[in-house]
């Protein structure tokens, strides 16, 4: 059988200071086969694309359409969105007839004038394929899922873990189900239950951990094909924002609806407990200093580039300097200008640098500080969700007892290599501040003595009341105190 595979991923925050255009996609290795962009890297792109790999592993043909990812940021420039969408449709047209379509779509993408990019794309793909051709969509659990997307796709499979460690296993499951549907061995029926809450729920901590395991166990029941538990993404600020549960069954809508409601009710019931132990800057610093054991990891969650923040805020860094903390590492501060100046000055140089605070008010005030340049590299990459991501020109500079990694290609910290490649030792440091909300967890928690989630002011503002949200539906927990059924009962096609 022949499957068309494509991927478009952008988590959009209307409150990010970072505009998003084609160059932001290019920076991450854009592949648009119809228009010929990036075709020099075709083999590498196809080899690392899990949906295509999985199809081929099963002995089927995969035609790879666009693969496009950009770091989270502001709504995608309309021309850019149209170009990528057009390339998906044209590539698909060239590949037709196909036995199925498999796509990764983030779920929280907004473009100028298009609030629901995923729904828009799936509807256009459906219009091309017509009914009966299976369409499967893998997605991020930080998506906001709309009727346009759910009605036009046969199966939507968000990851279940945060950190998203299960993208590959969910992709495998999606491929299996779409192949079975293409053979007409199953007929997916589904139910979707919106849950009137928003948050960033760490599946690494109790009781979320137990809840996800429990929800996933429904997939072992007869007739249930898959379960999705989504968290929503508040900063997209669209009408569909919010958490949800989606259940797919083999031709049994009633079972789907029952199961979705059951899972959703327990999810809603936990809403207060799973909100996350987010503490203020001062609290984070004093907890870290008081802790006996090393390293303490402080996640700077509101300045997470993975949520659309610049990654250059100075709140935690300033607080650590003010208490004269030592044996501290901070990374990665996105500051191409300072990284460049440090590299020009060279290893061993001492110079006055203005660090951070460069993208906008959410970045705080820049920090003027004398530093020593300890390392400069252009070639460092970190392992980010299965692929190697270059950091750009980067430097490790030291100010007193604090080592700071400056980099040029904006991204969150996934991997201790962000420090170790420069000769810094995050495993033995006293405190390590990472610009990441949760994806650092997978690689840092094995050696962390304690993890603190700090919530300074920032672009990924966790205080939903002060974000300036305009379109998020109400009532919504934790802004309001909604009843479970605020957005109605489950629905299906």
């Amino acid at each position, binding site marked *: 059988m022949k499957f068309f595979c494509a991927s478009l991923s952008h988590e959009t925050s209307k409150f990010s*200071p970072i505009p998003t255009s084609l160059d932001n996609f290019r920076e991450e290795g854009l592949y648009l086969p119809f228009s010929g962009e990036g075709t020099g890297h075709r083999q590498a792109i196809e080899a690392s694309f899990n949906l295509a790999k999985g199809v081929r592993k099963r002995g089927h043909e995969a035609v790879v359409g666009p693969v496009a990812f950009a770091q989270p940021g*502001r709504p995608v420039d309309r021309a850019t969105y149209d170009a990528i969408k057009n390339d998906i449709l044209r590539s698909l047209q060239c590949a037709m007839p196909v036995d199925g379509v498999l796509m990764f779509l983030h779920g929280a993408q907004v473009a100028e004038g298009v609030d629901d990019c995923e729904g828009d794309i799936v509807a256009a793909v459906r219009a091309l394929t017509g009914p009966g051709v299976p369409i499967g969509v893998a997605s991020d659990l930080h998506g906001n899922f709309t009727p346009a997307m759910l009605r036009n796709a046969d199966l939507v499979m968000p990851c279940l873990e945060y950190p998203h460690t299960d993208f590959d296993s969910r992709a495998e499951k999606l491929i299996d189900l779409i192949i079975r549907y293409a053979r007409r061995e199953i007929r997916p029926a589904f139910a979707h239950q919106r849950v009137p809450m928003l948050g960033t729920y760490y599946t690494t901590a109790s009781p979320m951990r137990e809840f996800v395991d429990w929800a996933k166990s429904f997939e072992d029941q007869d007739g249930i094909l898959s379960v999705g538990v989504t968290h929503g993404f508040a900063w997209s600020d669209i009408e569909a924002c919010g958490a949800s549960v989606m259940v797919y069954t083999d031709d049994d809508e009633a079972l789907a609806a029952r199961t979705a409601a059951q899972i959703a009710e327990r999810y809603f019931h936990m809403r207060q407990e799973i909100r996350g132990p987010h503490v203020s800057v001062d609290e984070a610093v004093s907890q870290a200093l008081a802790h006996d054991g090393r390293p303490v990891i402080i996640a700077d969650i509101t300045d997470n580039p993975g949520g659309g923040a610049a990654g250059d805020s100075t709140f935690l860094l300033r607080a650590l300097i003010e208490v004269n903390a030592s044996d501290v590492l901070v990374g990665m501060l996105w500051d191409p200008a300072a990284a460049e*100046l440090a590299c*020009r000055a060279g290893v061993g140089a001492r110079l006055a640098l203005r660090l951070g605070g460069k993208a906008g008010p959410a970045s705080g005030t820049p920090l003027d500080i004398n530093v020593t340049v300890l390392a400069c590299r252009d070639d460092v990459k970190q392992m980010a969700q299965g692929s190697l991501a270059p950091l750009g020109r980067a430097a490790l500079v030291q100010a007193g007892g604090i080592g700071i990694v400056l980099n040029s290609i904006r991204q969150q910290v996934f991997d201790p290599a962000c420090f170790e490649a420069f000769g810094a030792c995050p495993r033995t440091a006293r405190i390590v501040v990472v610009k990441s909300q949760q994806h650092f967890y997978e690689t840092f928690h094995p050696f962390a003595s304690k993890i603190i989630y700090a919530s300074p002011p920032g672009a990924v503002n966790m205080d939903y009341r002060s974000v300036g949200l305009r379109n998020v539906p109400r009532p919504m927990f934790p802004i309001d105190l909604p009843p479970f059924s605020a957005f109605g009962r489950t629905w299906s096609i």
Partner: protein
Amino acid sequence: MRLFSASFAHESSSFSPIPTNLENFRIAMLHRPSRGEIVPPRFKSIECGITAKAIERGHDVVESIGAVATPSGPMVRADYESVRDEILFDLRNAMPVDAVALFLHGAQLAQGYDDCEGDLLAAIRQIVGPDIPVGVEFDLHGNVTPAMLQAATVLLACKEYPHTDFPERAVQLLDILEAAVAGRARPVCASQSVPVMGIYHTTRQPLRGLVDRISEMERQPNVLGISIAHGFPWADTPCMGATVIVVTNEDEALAEKLAAQIAAEFYAMREEIAVPLTTIDAALDQYGAGANGLTIIADTADNAGGGAASDSTFFLHELSRRKLENVALGMLWDPVAVSFAFAAGVGATLPLRIGGKTGIQSGDPFDTEATVTALNPKLRQMAFGHMQTLGKAAAVRTACGIDIVLAAEREQTHSPECFTDMGIDLGAKRLVVVKSAQHFHARFSPIASRIIYAVAPGATSIDFSTFVYERLKRPIWPLDTLPPFTPKPIVWRA
């Protein structure tokens, strides 16, 4: 004749926040013919004068490195030494030569080197021996040292600030070298240092008159070249200061006499020719009280052409506070804001943090809701008589209506194209603030009804009391009270 030519020019500021290594040259100009390495020659015009002229006249020219960078801090030692040694290597390979012609700045510093030009010239003299003429064209902002005077046969600075006369000086230097090689002239130099630090415009009297007079004197028999080097006041070195150099044909007495006379005149007019310390407030008050037409305010303290970052916001904050209308400001160096503007596209309105990115001298960043009015992937401007290609630039309009040109490459504002090629109609503006100390004058003065030189805080502030000098030779005007100045020129004979 067989002429060896090279250019290695960097104005180095001890107070610049911008470090300097080979990368700074690569961006601006790093021409290494022997390695086949040719990089965008943004400054080709000023360095290639002698080489091009010599080729045109049919000389056998051996061209070595051409390396020029925008002013910034002292160069990383290893990188300075590598460029220097490459020039020396090329020279050894080119020997025997009849003459050497160099374009150097005169105020270049490297880590561990107070006097790069003196260091390079001494090494060149050692290779060519005592009899080969070595001529140097340099910037009048050079700090002339005994090592330079001892090693070079002829030192010739440009006379004008703005430096509009590099091409004439190149021809003049080539003429002197030709005469020396042919045995028609035996150059002898007299130098007189003048204990002053400052920035002096040759566009205004009485310095205009003195420059015209020295050009007249050059027409006297046996006078080959006269230079007034103003010095570069942000180089914290013992030889910082002004120097008068007179080159004659074997007439020591004449050289000494003229050097003494010109130095005394220059010293006597120091108060008059210094740029007054006009604050931001005073400059804007003057503008507000002023006439019709276009006023240009030079933000002299944030001049990339003197080693400043060119991203300070002191003016911007004050313009916004005063709610002034029909105002443009540029070019402000801000690669981050430029990249945001490019991503947002023309017509987009976005929250933008502008400037204040490099250091304390950059001031506080300016936050606004900006509208992108124009984008240019390759902005160009006229500089030193030639088109200079810059990088990406964006024009944005702030919420308070100020048009700002943001540039991804750090370069001072030389010409109105920086605005007009970004869709900003200067005919409709009443006030333009330019990040430049004086080079803007050559191209903006024809369209300006008034020019005000302002002194904000910054790396190129002419309020020298704001810097901590450690190595400067004291006493020096205007920081100290001086005993009466009595010129006693020194004669140098190669």
